[in-house]
């Protein structure tokens, strides 16, 4: 049974329709990522679930409790929903210590003093901040503040945790650690969570299911691997990874395959969508799936190396093939000699 069910949610902000009928389901213990560029409506959707904004129409249901229903006019206020929300800015109360921040949700729930202290300390221990209880938020690092915000959101055991760009305020190095830590914590505590992010790596790392939003609509949803390997639209393909993008014309189709040609090049790829011969099309291939070899072969283009950058965990090459500029990621430096770029047809998607 689904824990959270969002169906056909619409929301206007001023003249703009930010959400144009979004639906998705979340099962118990699952983590769903709402992924999308800025302006896709993901934060608006999260705020609608939290009850901080109310949609114009649609329905939001938590287990068997209706939180919002545009038809019946039901709109449970945020304070009665009992959800946990971690804000992008953490929103820790600067006039309260770490312990007081974490205790507050229990305090408004009138939990007896002894139990309140005990539960707060347990959560703080769980997130590794037991020594910091008497500090004020400004005395903590960004990562520690994030943990406090998380502790405050889970101390009352909400049925659903909402995370708004939970990692975006951390610096790059810390973010990777926090990602793993957060995923591990969510699994250990069996929390159901909805996480908003604009970073596809973060979405894939944290979530069991990714819901890709664009311009207020669900573009595609699925497991991380499905989303990365089998994007159904050009937008999904481009958003989920780093790509080469080749514009040309479809010249022939053969079942699921199609041949696309541009100025002085022609390549076979997998047909996604319904392009027909003679129509303009875009071919997309992930940087790491483009291959470098010394000899010509099927679906290859001769290319000259313009620049190569060593990034530690990989090499990033920039090639020129006629008018095309192609980037390739490899694990090791390519051997010297003439270079041909191979575009495996199953990895070159034609939209």
């Amino acid at each position, binding site marked *: 049974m689904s824990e959270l069910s969002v169906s056909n949610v619409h929301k206007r902000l001023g003249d703009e329709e930010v959400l144009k009928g979004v639906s998705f389901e979340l099962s118990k213990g699952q983590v769903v990522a709402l992924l999308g560029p800025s302006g896709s409506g993901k934060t608006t959707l999260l705020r609608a679930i*939290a009850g901080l904004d109310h949609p114009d129409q649609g329905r939001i249901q938590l287990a068997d409790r209706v939180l919002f229903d545009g038809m019946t006019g039901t709109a449970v206020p945020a*304070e009665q929903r009992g959800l946990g929300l971690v804000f992008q*800015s953490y929103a820790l109360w*600067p*006039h309260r210590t770490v312990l007081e921040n974490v205790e*507050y949700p229990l305090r408004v729930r009138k939990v007896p003093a002894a139990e309140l202290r005990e539960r707060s300390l347990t959560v703080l221990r769980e997130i590794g901040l037991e020594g910091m209880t008497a500090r004020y938020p400004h005395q903590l690092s960004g990562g520690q503040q994030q943990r406090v915000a998380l502790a*405050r*959101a889970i101390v009352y055991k909400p049925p659903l945790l909402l995370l708004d760009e939970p990692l975006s305020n951390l610096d790059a190095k810390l973010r990777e650690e926090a990602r793993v830590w957060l995923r591990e914590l969510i699994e250990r505590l069996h929390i159901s969570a909805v996480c908003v992010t604009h970073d596809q790596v973060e979405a894939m790392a944290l979530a069991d299911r990714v819901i890709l939003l664009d311009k207020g609509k669900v573009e595609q949803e699925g497991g991380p691997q499905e989303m990365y390997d089998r994007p159904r639209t050009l937008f999904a393909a481009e958003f989920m990874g780093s790509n080469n993008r080749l514009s040309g014309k479809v010249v022939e189709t053969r079942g699921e395959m199609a041949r696309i040609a541009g100025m002085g090049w022609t390549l076979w790829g997998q047909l996604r969508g319904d392009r027909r011969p003679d129509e303009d099309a875009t071919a997309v291939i992930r940087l790491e799936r483009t291959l470098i070899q010394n000899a010509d072969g099927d679906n290859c283009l001769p290319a000259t190396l313009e620049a190569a950058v060593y990034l530690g965990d990989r090499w990033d090459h920039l090639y020129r093939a006629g008018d095309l500029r192609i980037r390739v990621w490899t694990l090791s430096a390519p051997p010297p000699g003439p270079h041909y770029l191979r575009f495996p047809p199953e990895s070159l998607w034609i939209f």
Partner: protein
Amino acid sequence: MVLATGLTILSPLGIILYQSFLDGPFFQGSTKLSLSAFRFVLADADFHRAFGSTLIVAVGMTGLAVPLGGLLAFLVVRTDLPGRRWIEPALLIPIFLSPVVIAFGYVVAVGPVGFLTLLFREAFGKAPWNLYSLASVTVIAGLTHIPHVYLYTSSTLRAIGSDLEEAAAVAGAGTAQIAWKVSLPMVRPALLYSGVLVFFLGFELFGLPLILGDPEGMLVLSTYLYKLTNRLGVPSYQLMAVVAVVIMTFAFPLVWLQRRLLGLSGRFVSVRGKGLKRVPLRLGRWRWAALLLVLAWLVATVVTPLAGVFLRAFVTNWGEGVRLREVLTLEHFTELLDYPNLVRGVVNTMVIGVVGGAIAVACYATIALVQHRWQSRWAKVIDYLVMVPRGMPGLVAGLAFFWVFLFVKPIAPLRATPVSLWIAYSVVWLAYGMRLISGALLQVAPELEEAALTVGASRGQVTRHVTLPLIRFGLLGSWLLIFLIFVREYSTGVYLLGPGTEVIGSLIISLWATGAIDIVSALSVINVVLVGLGLAVALRLGVRVHE
């Protein structure tokens, strides 16, 4: 709550409008609706002269205050002017000094027998100025309103960051060129706004023209209104109401214009550059000339009148040939104690400032919080209601409340208590107070409140546990500023003055008319000292004096 606020704000306005269309005071049974009062006032030659003088003073002081205030802001915020640190707070003093005190100080210092005039006459035989003229009122009003321009312009200058100017400097522009070509266009909205503000304040001017214009019979609209009382012998309420209506007819569009402009200049400021680090522009050899200019202004607007007030308060008499050492005395202050109404005035002033100020801030905060939380149309209604008192100068508002207390029988007993004053003060300064509080509320990031909501706190708990604790410093600062404003206030209390409702400001006005200079000077000193104490505490606590 909207209803209570609305009633308090709109009833004085309503009673003035109603009274202006009657042919006699509203409490006389025989009055009828008529336009006779309008006809009388609009045909009165004195009214025409007063109206003309008001325009001259308002235009003149705007023309003086805007360029000088802008220049001052540029010098203090943007250049390496020596002593910027202590000049800044000194600049604000005129805002919190009562104009009656300043006017009185000028009379003592540079009036026909003022001590500076006498010194000057001794040295050169003749003093080339006449304090009791329209020109003097205009110049003094202009000089004392420079801080208003300074406040808005300097905050805009500060918000913009100096990278734009640095870019010009790198491109090879000199300081003067930068000021003219880069800084000026950036602060133009602020200058425009403060220009309208000063012009508007020109219409409200009361203390200065009353004291400086009186000897030569010069009138502006507010003093014309004030003098009307004794003009016809009988209480000519309908005429006063008409003059009040005329003043408000000019004030309301100006208030509306200010609001529009503030919105515009706000938008301008929000395009702020990221790095706000400021490297002062070098004035070079003009540094000391600039400092001299600032000092000259300070001497003219603060030191001179204050010196006059203090000097006069501690001497028995003053005139040609008097030696300072022989006339020094403290007896004006001891004399105060002999008059119970004066003692009450001092006590009332302090009580209204401290206690009344605190209650007023509590009221403002309540309204602001309701408005802050309610995203409904009532919030908009309050927003407009708050504007209304801005269009009523203190003198007019005081008069209106006096009438309200006469008209509405159940609250009539309050008229002889400081409560009536407190209500009038609170309404007159409502817009200012609300701006102070909403300024503090703006500092609270909305997600801090939303975080409390999502963890289950009720709206009331959010306010008590999050919002109020976070703005407590802002509230304290507002209290101090409202204290200063209430202590300084004089015009609102003029019509409400009676046994039990004496305050220093209105006492000075009424005693001035009787010629009791000794007492006026002593009261003025007490007023200045109170304001000085409040200002010192405020600066000490780091309260941003700018709204």
